[in-house]
């Protein structure tokens, strides 16, 4: 612990009691569950809600077993040691805390699809799958079962209601930490139960609150990587869990350029590590197939004309109408690109790009924005490449 003198220290933030109560929107004393990962963000959420006068119950999902041969795992999340951290925070705050064994569900809904996707030539987004299955389904159900009136998480996104009473999910105030992209599977019924109290805070404010609340996790490193993959690269992890197909690298005409031993080493838009002879124009992965074929082309060949999202789920509950202009974000931290709704067919949404978008990988999340508001999203299931962008 740093022992700085009080004169060096910035003033500790005041307890944002009024803001928390306004954000939670429930009478003081209401029972609120907090999804506690053991990290600083969700720990601070629990602490702020205790200060605001709620009956807080901490829930930590145990998601997977850690490979005992893997020693250092800084920045993991939801591993057994993180459950202990969450328990420690609960002890500091004097709240009830339960560890939920969700290993089976996590394997079924997150790990297995992750492997299946890599094997089938897609680039999965396990964080979205985890939010959909674990946080928005299982944890919400557990919280409701415990009689909680809401479930709060430490996500950096803002969730409230618009003037028509529809759920409004917006980017977090701290754009460096914004997680709105991963949260699109939020459907209206669940949105009304969830709270993201950190949405209007910066990471620094959150850390300051962690210090002020004397939470032992306030200097814990960020969890950034895919939790169950740990320190490994996803391709190595896939290789050590049954592997992905080997195959050939071909150009757009189908001419064989080389071979590879693991389809999971490649993702659309990738330039490095193709193992092709140097010289000439830079080459990119433009497509992958389940038979192991990796198609390589020029940067221009990455240009996306159309995207299909399946299943499309709406945060607001409203269906998008053909012709509507939206922003489409296809990767975490990418800027949304202008697109037009071309077709709505059941749970399928087809978007025609109106601006340059290079490289969209099947399996990734395609998230539909109106400015900074998330309208909905879906898994990218089809990408039409071409010269369509104007």
């Amino acid at each position, binding site marked *: 612990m740093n022992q700085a003198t009080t004169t060096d220290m910035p003033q500790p933030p005041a307890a944002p009691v009024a803001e928390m109560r306004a954000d939670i929107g429930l009478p003081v004393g209401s*029972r609120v569950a907090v999804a506690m990962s053991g990290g600083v963000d969700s720990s601070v959420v629990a602490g702020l809600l205790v200060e605001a006068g709620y009956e807080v*119950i901490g829930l930590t999902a*145990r998601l997977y077993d850690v490979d005992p041969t893997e020693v250092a795992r800084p920045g993991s999340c939801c591993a*057994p040691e993180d*459950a*202990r951290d969450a*328990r420690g925070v609960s002890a500091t705050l*004097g*709240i*009830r*805390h*339960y*560890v*939920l*064994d969700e290993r089976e569900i996590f394997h079924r809904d997150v790990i297995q699809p992750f492997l299946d996707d890599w094997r089938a030539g897609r680039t999965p987004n396990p964080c979205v799958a985890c939010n959909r299955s674990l946080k928005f389904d299982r944890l919400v*159900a*557990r919280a*409701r*079962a*415990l*009689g909680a009136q809401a479930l709060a998480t430490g996500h950096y996104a803002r969730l409230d209601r618009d003037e028509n009473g529809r759920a409004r999910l917006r980017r977090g105030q701290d754009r460096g930490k914004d997680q709105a992209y991963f949260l699109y599977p939020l459907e209206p019924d669940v949105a009304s139960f969830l709270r993201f109290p950190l949405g209007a805070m910066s990471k620094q404010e959150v850390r300051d609150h962690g210090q002020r609340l004397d939470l032992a996790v306030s200097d814990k490193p960020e969890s950034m990587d895919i939790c169950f993959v740990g320190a490994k690269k996803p391709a190595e992890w896939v290789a050590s869990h049954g592997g992905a197909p080997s195959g050939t690298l071909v150009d757009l005409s189908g001419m064989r350029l080389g071979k590879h031993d693991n389809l999971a080493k490649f993702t659309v838009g990738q330039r490095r590590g193709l193992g092709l002879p140097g010289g000439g124009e830079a080459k990119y992965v433009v497509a992958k197939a389940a038979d192991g074929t990796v198609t390589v082309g020029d940067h221009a060949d990455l240009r996306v004309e159309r995207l299909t999202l399946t299943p499309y789920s709406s945060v607001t509950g409203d269906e998008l109408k053909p012709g509507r202009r939206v922003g489409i974000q296809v990767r975490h931290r990418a800027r949304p690109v202008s697109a037009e709704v071309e077709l709505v067919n059941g749970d399928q949404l087809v978007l025609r790009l109106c601006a340059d978008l290079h490289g969209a990988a099947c399996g990734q999340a395609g998230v539909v924005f109106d400015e900074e508001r998330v309208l909905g999203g879906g898994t990218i299931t089809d990408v039409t490449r071409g010269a369509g962008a104007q």
Partner: protein
Amino acid sequence: MSSLRPSIYLDHHASAPLTPAVRAAIGTLLGAGAANPSSIHGAGQDARHAIDRARVVIARAVGAKPRQVVLTSGATEANHAAIRGCVVTAARPVAWSSALAHPSVHAAIAALPNWEAQSLPITPTGHIDLAAARQLLDTTDARVDLLSVTLVSNELGTIQRVSELVGQVRASHPKALIHCDASQALGRVDVDFGSLGVDLLTLSGHKIGAPAGIGALIIADGLVLRPVLPGHQEGERRGGTENLIGAVALGTACGELPWRRAQMQHVRKLRDALWAGISELEVETVRHADVGQDQETGTCLSVAFVGLSASDLVMSLDVEGVAVSAGSACSSGTLSASPVIAAIVGEDDSGLAASTLRFSLGPESTTQDVDGAIAATALVTTRLAQQQRR
């Protein structure tokens, strides 16, 4: 810090409340200051005398001699000391236990190098099947080097006919060592070392009003174990400075056993009232080990709430102020389905194990506790059923 202790405590099989006499005895010791019972000086002798006085009471409580009592850190250590301390001549010895045994018995047997583990069959009511055991053990080619039998099941409260089983085994396998775990039996049924006829007997403090961290192993005269914790203390049978506070607490609690036994009819009446109330709820229930008075302690109600998850029930009841348990708590705080219940319900009804709660009562339980528990169970089962229909 406020306490999270629920107002209704129905988990006496996990840990019984400290009795006022035990609290007083501990308080006196804490006030008197510490000394090492192995020290020569008067303070050390005071400690030694206190332990020896406790040993006399402990021995008397189970019809043993003081020199046969080895104090341990609890029943788990006593079980390990008994099982792993066995000295046998067979090249590949065979240890028998049953699904009713505490996990520490299974762990101790598994830790024996080159031993073979065998399990006695149990009946659907949670008793060792003596007829089947006879068939298995009563042959000349059956090998029995060690038998570990549980007098009272921690999860069901069922009483095993230990002396009958011992008689069977002694007749065909006179050299076999026989251990009995009486952790859950003490204070609930008669425990007499002589009439049980066993060589080794495990006792636990925190099931009878002493704190966790103290227990005892009773060792028959002439039987030499290989100490798991070698050292000069406890007659060279268990190393480590004696736990003075624990020993005195265990002695005090053993001195109160007549009082505890006298309360058992009252406890049984409360338990029966609890079942009467719960069986009338709308939720479908299946009671385990519903057998005659002489076959179970009357302190425990093991009941499956069909279609509901035991871990959800435990958490929900806790939040409503009622402490019960289910299965066995693992290190991370998650629950896994009880192997004891899984063994008695059979594969066809394996789902029942994950729906089973254990309510366990003791002399401190009251009619108000029972009424409150029934009301809370009504509330949470209704809420969980609603939640499942969502």
